[in-house]
């Protein structure tokens, strides 16, 4: 019911990529991951409505859609912040001191791994391995990969792009 509403109102264009993916796989339940993936790409996260929509369209029980979505790390259920910082915590980065970067970012901006600042400016995640181990430690800010980072360089980079008045960690710059 809620799903139907979203379909007819705000969903008509937003859900289009999801419809296309489902059509491409002929609503085959084996393509559930592909469909969820395109949903996340289209909306930025998986809302309750979209899970219900997928469940009804593909004729897969909601419990299974939810079960699959929560199993995989790549799916998120909360909207992302305006800017996104991903810190690699793979082995090579770990050995080269990525822990200090994680600590610096979460202390400076007051958010933990997987969280977004209250005003929605910055999201921060850690990643298992970005596969650029030769250049550790690696950090990705808004899709841009930076190599051989330090706590200071990362914090400064974030301040430069994401800082706004009310955000924690930005005070001393004002």
């Amino acid at each position, binding site marked *: 019911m809620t799903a139907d509403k979203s379909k007819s109102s705000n969903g008509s264009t937003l859900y289009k990529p999801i419809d296309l993916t489902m059509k491409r796989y002929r609503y*085959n*339940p*084996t*393509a*559930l*991951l*592909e469909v*969820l*993936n395109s949903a996340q790409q289209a909306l930025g996260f998986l809302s309750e409505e979209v899970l219900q929509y997928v469940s009804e369209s593909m004729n897969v029980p909601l419990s*299974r859609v939810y*079960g*699959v979505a929560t*199993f*995989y*790390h*790549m*799916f998120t259920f909360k909207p992302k912040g305006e800017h996104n910082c991903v810190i690699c*915590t*793979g*082995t*090579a980065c*770990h*050995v*080269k001191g990525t822990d200090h970067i994680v600590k610096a970012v979460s202390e400076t901006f007051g958010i933990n791994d997987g969280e977004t600042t209250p005003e929605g400016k910055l999201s921060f995640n850690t*990643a*298992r*391995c*970005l*596969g*650029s*181990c*030769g*250049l*550790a430690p*690696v950090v990705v800010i808004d899709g841009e*990969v*930076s*190599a051989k980072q330090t706590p200071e360089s990362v914090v400064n980079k974030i301040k430069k792009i994401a800082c706004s008045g009310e955000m924690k960690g930005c005070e001393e710059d004002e």
Partner: protein
Amino acid sequence: MNKTRLEELGKNELDRQKQFTHRIFGCSSTACVSAGARSTLEILHLAVKASCCTEDEVEVVNTGCMGLCSRGPLVRIETAGEEPVLYGDVTPEIALKIVARHLPVDAADADKDCKELGEEEAAELFEIREELIKSVGVEDLDEHVISLDIPFFTRQEKVVLSNTGYTDPEKLEDYLAHGGYQALIKVLEEYTPEQVCKEILDSGLRGRGGAGFPTGLKWDLTRKQQAEHKYVIVNGDEGDPGAYMDRTVMEDDPHRVLEGMIIAAYAVGADHGYLYIRGEYPVAVDRINQAIRDARRRKILGRSVLGTDFSFTAEVRIGAGAFVCGEETALMHSVEGKRGAPRMRPPYPAESGIFGYPTNINNVETMANIPSIILRGADWFAAIGTEKSKGTKVFALAGQLRQTGLIEVPMGITLRDIVFEIGDGIPGGKAFKAAQTGGPSGGCIPEQFLDEPVDYENLKRLGSIMGSGGLVIIDETTRMPEFARFFMDFCVDESCGKCVPCRIGTVQIRNLLDKIIHGNGTLEDLEKLDKLCPIVQKSSLCGLGQSAPNPVISTLKYFRHEYEELIQVPETEET
């Protein structure tokens, strides 16, 4: 048969490449891109345009990984009749100097008109030309030239990576020009499926995903099954932190993976295949998809492959970030659109895999070995390596080393050679402490075993595993209990929760490690670890749990004193 057409395409491409006096290869692999390769490549393309060379004299190729990732962005210049020159740390400014040094940039030709270009582009080119002319003769590039005679390059033996860094991965013709799909043609013309399995078995190739099961045997098991459908899967769910071999092969030589897969399908009698690629590797997904499209257009994939009566289709499935999906039964569940939880074996995938049909699963690197084995023969392959481990292995060499990057070495090379020759030793005057192989499923190998040859059996004997190829070197500054906890944290997160020993055991091990690291541990806790680790190893359902305690066991074995130092001295000893 379309075979002659393929050969013609390859030959034409080779002729086309030979006409250039200069070919400039810019590494566009992920590591170099993180180091800024995109702007380097952009300026290279512009600079060549701005030089006085015509388009049929010079070509800039965006190519795959050249190996020495720590010196990225890398650029190599091949000039007809000269030795190739490799440059490292190539910023856009350095790229201009390289062009100024190698290409005939002529000051007299400074006004070469740019009429055909738009105004903005012409102005930009003009600026670049000015820069180029200024650089001629004064370029100081000595510290950027990387000798190709250093052990990093000479000690390697390239099979799987033979094309990466030399071809354009997005171009089927370039793969054909380097002998691509010749193995497939040979197999379709000369071999029965049974003969293919035998050839691979004779070569001694073992699974490169880590467990080391003989590939030929696996294929033969699937081949013998009678079924309406059979499937082939390429496992590209490279989840080990510190490993990026499979990503590089998929990104930089996608057709090689595809060719190996099609040969596997012919050998086992499969009609459809999946390439399961980690979601964190969008470039690999794009390149493989592109390769599938190009192969389909040339009738290398699809109904009646190259005009024979063998048909095979392939598609990509994207993983969504679950380490356990590297396990074959979990991976199959994921391909079916379910939670990626493993199941009991038997039945093995060869008997009952995807949708209940016989399925053959191989790792990316395993598949990438196949074309070379078919073309050069099982005997050639079997001559490389040790008695039980044949061929080469690709390692992602990382950690506290002077030179890190992607290497391919013959099996049986010693760790010492890898660390001190290829990796050029530990920087900053620090001492080597351990080599960690196999990621969270592997262990730490201490200094006294540096001269042991690297092969499946030896690494296992030393308490580690070959794994998929992550090789992280740590120096004296890393404390082992914390290093072990790092891996346990990973396993706690990644445990799928299906079986108790793994779900609860990993958490208990982590808690014990935490207690010890925070200085609250007792000798009894150490004993608990000694007991608990083997229990988790023996009673877990799948490879994840069975190998999760390895980092703890191996560090307890070789670096026990570091744990003991953290444990408060009992009162009796204080007096």
